[in-house]
């Protein structure tokens, strides 16, 4: 259902229309001050329509335009004496924190199920046995560390711009993370697992890559957090800090994604497992799309954005 909001000349009230198959039908009016923010209008709207809580509402000036922010003030918007606001229902919402915690806790738990060779995953004679390859134990530590780090960052580090995302995302995201985690864990912890061709050398190199990238990823998250004071939604250009890991900001807009891909490449080399490589590839594709989008919005928002930076891979992509 679409609604339109009308503000007559006095600018002091909103008239709501609802579009039905029979045409436009006026509904209950609400009184609103011109100094009201969009957030307040959303709250008022929720009172008369409780099924559409504020997080579900998208109000915009143009049906195809961007959503208005909660902080925008009605008076300051580019409207004439009569304003028309368009409403869209975003669907059931769920908070980002909830989604992140669920989608990261899954792989952590699932991998351990395979690591400990819980019954019904492999043949009966392998139940609760342990691999004789040291790289398998190392891989478990790395994988678990990675997801524990992510969980802790979600709880204590990240500062989210949006509170919520559509509910169906949790099913999509969890399927992706949990599915791939199970697939990778199955092969790495399999009784017939083959350790890397170049032995300890390969594992050591891979571990170094992994650790460096994890530290890098964490440093970037901390740097991004410091850009934004608690509870605010300000956006600023990120710059390198004293921490050498953040120097990647000189070359790349989203070094956190760069380091993330690097970690997974390291993990793939460490385990020499094709599913891990495929997971890295898929993740890289998705992160590239995100990085390009972020890069584009940086360029649009900031005139003085450093020109040397590429979205995700220095000089290339």
């Amino acid at each position, binding site marked *: 259902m*679409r609604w339109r909001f009308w503000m007559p000349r006095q600018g002091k009230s909103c008239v709501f229309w609802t579009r039905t198959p029979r*045409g436009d*039908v006026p509904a209950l*009016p609400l009184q609103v001050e011109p100094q009201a923010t969009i957030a307040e209008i959303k709250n008022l709207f929720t009172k008369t329509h409780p099924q559409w809580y504020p997080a579900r509402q998208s109000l915009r000036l143009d049906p*195809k335009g961007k959503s208005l922010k909660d902080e925008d003030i009605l008076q300051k918007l580019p409207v004439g004496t009569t304003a028309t606001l368009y409403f869209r229902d975003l669907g059931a919402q769920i908070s980002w924190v909830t989604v992140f915690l669920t989608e990261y806790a899954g792989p952590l738990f699932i991998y351990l199920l395979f690591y400990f060779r819980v019954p019904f995953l492999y043949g009966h004679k392998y139940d609760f046995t342990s691999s004789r390859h040291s790289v398998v134990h190392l891989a478990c530590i790395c994988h678990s560390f990675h997801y524990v780090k992510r969980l802790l960052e979600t709880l204590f580090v990240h500062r989210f711009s949006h509170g919520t995302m559509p509910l169906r995302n949790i099913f999509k995201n969890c399927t992706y993370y949990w599915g791939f985690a199970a697939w990778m864990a199955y*092969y790495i912890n399999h009784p017939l*697992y083959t350790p890397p061709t170049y032995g300890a050398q390969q594992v050591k190199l891979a571990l170094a890559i992994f650790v460096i990238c994890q530290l890098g990823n964490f440093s970037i998250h901390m740097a991004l957090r410091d850009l934004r004071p608690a509870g605010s939604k300000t956006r600023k250009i990120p710059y390198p800090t004293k921490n050498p890991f953040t120097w990647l900001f000189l070359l790349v807009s989203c070094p956190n994604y760069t380091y993330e891909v690097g970690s997974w490449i390291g993990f793939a080399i460490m385990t*020499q*497992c094709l599913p891990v490589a495929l997971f890295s590839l898929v993740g890289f594709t998705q992160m590239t799309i995100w990085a390009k989008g972020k890069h584009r919005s940086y360029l649009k928002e900031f005139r003085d954005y450093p020109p040397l930076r590429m979205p995700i891979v220095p000089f290339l992509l």
Partner: protein
Amino acid sequence: MAALWAVSGLRPRPGPASPWSLPPPPRPAKSSLWCSRTESELRVLDMAASAVATAASKGNGGGGGRSGPSEGSSARKKKFPGPLATAYLVIYNVVMTAGWLVIAVGLVRAYLAKGSYHSLYYSIEKPLKFFQTGALLEILHCAIGIVPSSVVLTSFQVMSRVFLIWAVTHSVKEVQTEDSVLLFVTAWTITEIIRYSFYTFSLLNHLPYLIKWARYTLFIVLYPMGVSGELLTIYAALPFVRQAGLYSISLPNKYNFSFDYYAFLILIMISYIPLFPQLYFHMIHQRRKVLSHTEEHKKFE
């Protein structure tokens, strides 16, 4: 309601509030976004419908978005391809129509020559492979934007057809004599002839109602026919895949990976169960919309 009028600063009118008693809100010029959004939704769903199925007459509804319900009112926000692109697309669609006609004629001739409908696959094997694989170009068309469809959905659709041709029928020689192959080939042939001629005429803005009707009606029979043919063929291929260990790799190996083509085929077959009803009923729904739309338009013309 009186309060409403007072608040809005307009003269109250007697009678129940009707849409016409207040000045209408300023609408966006033409094709209110309601329409175009619904249409674009329909288009996306249409593509989803056609893409996800591997059945024959998914072609019937598939790419419905590409030329849309063809009485293209200028109100639609669709970007038309330039004249060069249009010319190329017309040629492409004509060639494809001709190709599938060749396959159809080949089938009929082979049937008449042999006197039976068994093992007709061999007589049209080459053109079938050529023209169905040629449909891969459609992915390119979407990618470069001359066809307004989603690349992902089109890829899905075309790849599934190509999969059936190469990875099942070509790879497992023993199924080539099965009757189920004829079943899906026939369904595909009729569907594709209608579909490509539909596109050709749409691009030239001269779509005969008969083609439109055919496209949105024949799927009712062709779609289940095609799906049955495909499923039966895959089912027939299973024992041979198992026997030969076709396209399968097992542990242990250097890359710690395994793939069981037999299980994969079974998964494909299972995936038809949720997909087919959804797509089929979506097509029925589309049909109602498109064909009644035409009647309305005819009334106004």
